């Protein structure tokens, strides 16, 4: 029993990290109908920025988190302004290629600056608790806690504030939003920044949990989070989270029940089956007439 509970904790931890990244994909897809494949690299930059920050001045976790989110958020907005806005009306393939290219550029800039994997300093004293054979660390609690907090804040913002209302409206019809006199570009920049900031927060938390930081750390997890966002219904925030927790628990479950060799095979086959029955993702809706 405690073995199962331990694996459930593992799944929640994995799912919450996937979730924070998946939100970024979904937010950007929501307002622009484009996949920002550089998102995994913004995640990586979040970890790197925090590492650099801590090298210069050791800051407490909350301050480091805020600063990282702020700086990487601005970088995300800058990326949108410089790379994506000029090709917004180009064919979709160009947008995909541009985002893949931006990702590679970010990766290689980091690689040029630091070819070696770096060790992430711990930002607080980690203690480990054991209850009846279940092990949980204060780090795990903090990581899961911060992730859930950010997810709830985003959900409240999207559902209950004027800004969230505009973001939802943008997802429906961008032209109509500007016809209502709302500066759509500014909102898009802001949404990009928001997605990047969440990705950076995930990167930071990830680097704290698995304290090796390298320029390629965002690739595999970026794809996994992207898959989670698609499974949940891309463009739908709650869907992204649902997809992330499904992916995390499928991975852990397949290791628990079968030899770990089959993890990815089982996990992704299951996800494909979900897509066969729900082609727009679990909470996604088929696109109705847009413009």
């Amino acid at each position, binding site marked *: 029993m405690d073995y199962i509970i331990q694996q459930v904790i593992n799944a929640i931890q994995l799912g919450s990290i996937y979730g924070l990244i998946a939100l970024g994909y979904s937010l950007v897809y929501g307002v622009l109908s484009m996949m920002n494949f550089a998102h995994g690299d913004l995640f990586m930059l979040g970890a790197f920025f925090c590492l650099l920050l801590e090298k210069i001045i050791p800051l407490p976790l909350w301050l480091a988190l805020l600063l990282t989110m702020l700086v990487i958020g601005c970088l995300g907005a800058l990326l949108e302004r410089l790379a994506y806005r000029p090709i917004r009306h180009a064919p979709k393939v160009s947008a995909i290629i541009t985002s893949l290219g931006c990702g590679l550029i970010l990766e290689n800039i980091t690689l040029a600056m630091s070819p070696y994997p770096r060790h992430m300093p711990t930002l607080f004293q980690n203690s480990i608790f054991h209850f009846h054979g279940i092990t949980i660390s204060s780090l795990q609690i903090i990581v899961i806690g911060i992730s859930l907090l950010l997810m709830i804040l985003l959900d409240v913002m999207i559902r209950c504030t004027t800004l969230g209302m505009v973001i939802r409206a943008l997802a429906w019809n961008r032209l109509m939003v500007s016809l*209502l006199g709302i500066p759509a570009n*500014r909102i898009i920049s802001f949404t990009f920044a928001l997605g990047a900031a969440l990705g950076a927060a995930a990167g930071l938390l990830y680097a704290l949990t698995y304290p090796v930081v390298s320029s390629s750390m965002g690739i595999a997890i970026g794809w996994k989070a992207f898959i989670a966002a698609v499974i949940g219904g891309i463009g739908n925030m709650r869907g992204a989270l649902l997809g992330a927790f499904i992916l995390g628990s499928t991975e852990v479950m397949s290791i628990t029940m079968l030899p770990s060799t089959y993890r990815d095979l089982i996990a992704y086959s299951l996800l494909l089956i979900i897509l066969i029955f729900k082609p727009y993702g679990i909470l996604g809706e088929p696109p109705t007439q847009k413009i």
Partner: protein
Amino acid sequence: MDFTPEKQSPILEVSLLNKNFGGMRTIIDLSFELAPKECLGIIGPNGAGKTTLFNLLSGIIRPSSGKILWFHQEIQKKSSSEIVHLGIARTFQNIRLFKQLSVLENIRIAYDIHLTYTPLQALLRTALTREEEKKSAQAAMELLDVFSITSLAHQPAGSLSYGDQRRLEIARALALHPRLLLLDEPAAGMNESEMYQLVELLQWIQKKFHVSMLLIEHHMAFINGLCDRTLVLDFGTLIAQGTLEEIRHDRRVIEAYLGEAVT
């Protein structure tokens, strides 16, 4: 034939407007004026360029040549959001509501033009003061009341009946506090009684909000009930203008509607 109901300077002047799509001339040397508080009907066969004219006026597309003066200021190069801020709002032939947002939110998002300056400000604003939001919600409810859709305020806009969706779209345009309302076939898909209700409602709105209107419509009765004057477009050119009575007897209008056979 220059007809203005009062000797006031016009609020909107369109002069020698042209729009080409590739080789297609959709609007050709179009000129007309609109007086304050006037309601101007626009009719014409399909493909006459009526919706193109609205797209030009609302800044969705740019004219190939010509000028659009709004209170003597050139606006033909402005973006659609700038034009909204100057006081020109519109509705669409095919309804464009935010269907997954609630009815109330569809109105409030239009009020947003007065609330939101930058996203960050908006975020802080909503976090700090709920006062303004309350106000906008209240104003939105009042507007819904005018259009008698208050009871549907929290339904998703997509679930409304066709007639209600049309009314909501007009209400949303009004929430922008426009001085000129561009209505693209507002009565399309409505039954007779809904149509007369809408005519009455628009008459009342025009008086209450002191708003001018440009109106594309196929139902002559609708035009008759609302418009002081009507323009007739055919293949992008203005072929006639005047009261409905005058137009009805215009030879070119009859030709345009019935074909060249009539001489």
